[in-house]
């Protein structure tokens, strides 16, 4: 498979009024087209900054990002689901879902029909006319994820999409996310704090160090999906990841 995103020697320092804050330090990695890459690391280490650079929303200080071996990303090249406030509260679930198409100027009737079909397919039927504040946290994230998947871009960046959910909902949502992805294949870069989530979903997991962050180690997960959360190889992966994140375990 070809390289969808090539990141090399990326560095970023914020120059806030309070002083310099180095966030990324010579970060390099490649993302294979159609694969699932996960970035895991301590909170506040700069994962969101990295995603925003990949999305072309902010520039890096040094280093390069190339999409499909070509140009650097500019805003609009890559689909991005930010961590907070993902839905617009004044739009119904369906109107939120078609936002991307509305912005690209697609006729509303066709967009609504297509989005309705997706709602049907991914367990959101009946919630089309609900406002986000009337939905549960899990439902809200489903709508946000569906919206990101139907942006007509081959690369999708997800910033902790399940971060605010309780562990039970979260586990169910991981399986749901996987079923969406298996039907609407895209190149995914996911940011998470959750070791299990990384192991269930990813082809490749990059473990990031504290700020200024760089890649500490990369773990490949070759097991067939869907993966059993109780298998020996899953436990081995879990242990390896936890060791990398926390040092030696008791």
């Amino acid at each position, binding site marked *: 498979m070809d390289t969808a995103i090539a990141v090399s020697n990326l560095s970023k320092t914020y120059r806030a009024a309070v002083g310099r804050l180095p966030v990324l330090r010579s970060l390099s990695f490649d993302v294979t087209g159609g694969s699932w890459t996960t970035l895991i690391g301590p909170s506040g280490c700069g994962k969101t900054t990295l995603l*925003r650079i990949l999305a072309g929303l902010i520039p890096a200080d040094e280093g390069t990002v190339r999409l499909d071996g070509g140009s650097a990303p500019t*805003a609009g090249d890559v689909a*991005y689901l*930010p961590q907070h406030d993902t839905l*617009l509260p004044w739009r119904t679930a369906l109107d939120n879902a078609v936002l991307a198409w509305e*912005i690209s100027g697609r006729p509303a009737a066709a967009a609504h029909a297509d989005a309705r079909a997706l709602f049907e397919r991914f367990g959101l039927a009946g919630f089309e006319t609900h*406002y986000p*504040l*009337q939905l549960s946290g899990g439902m809200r994230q489903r709508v946000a994820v569906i919206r990101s998947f139907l942006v007509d871009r081959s690369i999708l960046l997800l910033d902790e999409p399940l971060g605010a959910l309780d562990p039970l909902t979260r586990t169910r949502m991981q399986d749901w996310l996987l079923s969406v992805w298996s039907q609407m294949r895209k190149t995914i870069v996911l940011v998470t704090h959750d070791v299990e989530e990384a192991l269930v979903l990813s082809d490749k997991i990059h473990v990031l160090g504290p700020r200024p962050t760089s890649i500490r180690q990369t773990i490949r997960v070759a097991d067939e999906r869907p993966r059993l959360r109780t298998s020996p190889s899953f436990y081995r992966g879990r242990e390896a990841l936890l060791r990398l994140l926390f040092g030696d375990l008791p």
Partner: protein
Amino acid sequence: MRQKAATLLIGTAIVLALLATWEVCVRWLGVPRFVLPPPSEILWAFVAQFPMLLPHIATTLGEIVLGLSLAVLVGTGLGVALFYVPTLDRALHPAIIASQMIPVFAIAPLLIVWFGYGLWPKVTVAAMIGFFPMVVNVTDGLKSTSPDRIDLLRSLGATRWQILTKLRFPSSLPSVLSGLKVAATLSVVGATIGEWVGARQGLGYLMVQSHSQFRDARVFAAILALTIVGLLLYWAIRLLESRLLRWRAAAVEADEELYGGRW
């Protein structure tokens, strides 16, 4: 439904109690009619002279609506401009604040000199005090947009204009509508002040006229008419608000039901 009935009952009871107290006090204490007429007489004056009041109401309402529309247009336009051009914001901020420090009563006579006795001095006064809450609430509303949502729209390839119309305007709507409610009540006061200083028609003019003729029941009848106009305007905006912010009302209702009331 039961709650709505209770609200209506309590509101009516309070107003009736106040009016009754007023009526009884005025009659028992023998207050002269030209000092304070009893409410029954005001109501009678209002009903009996309603055909006479009508053209005055129409004039004042016209001034209020025009003044408020001007305030909304100028206030929103200026608010958007100040938001997108920070230099303009810093440059104009003192002038905008100063415009609210000038007593309207002091410049209203000047406006008559400039524009004559017609409609425009009143519209100008109403717009002058109404535009301020609009400017403030529009800029504050536009600033309150969530940065993550801006990221989202930018990542969808939205233009600046699309971000304004699809994100910043709807985000600022609760704040803008609060500003509109304040502006509406202020524009009622503004139009009346404009008429007070010099006019040939309108409720403010009628108050001045009736007062100089010691016809206090008519002064109060005019005040009653003005109050009704103001309330209707306010309710119209409340209605608009409940339409535009339906998404919020639904959630608040659901929450209050979930948590057993408002805490």
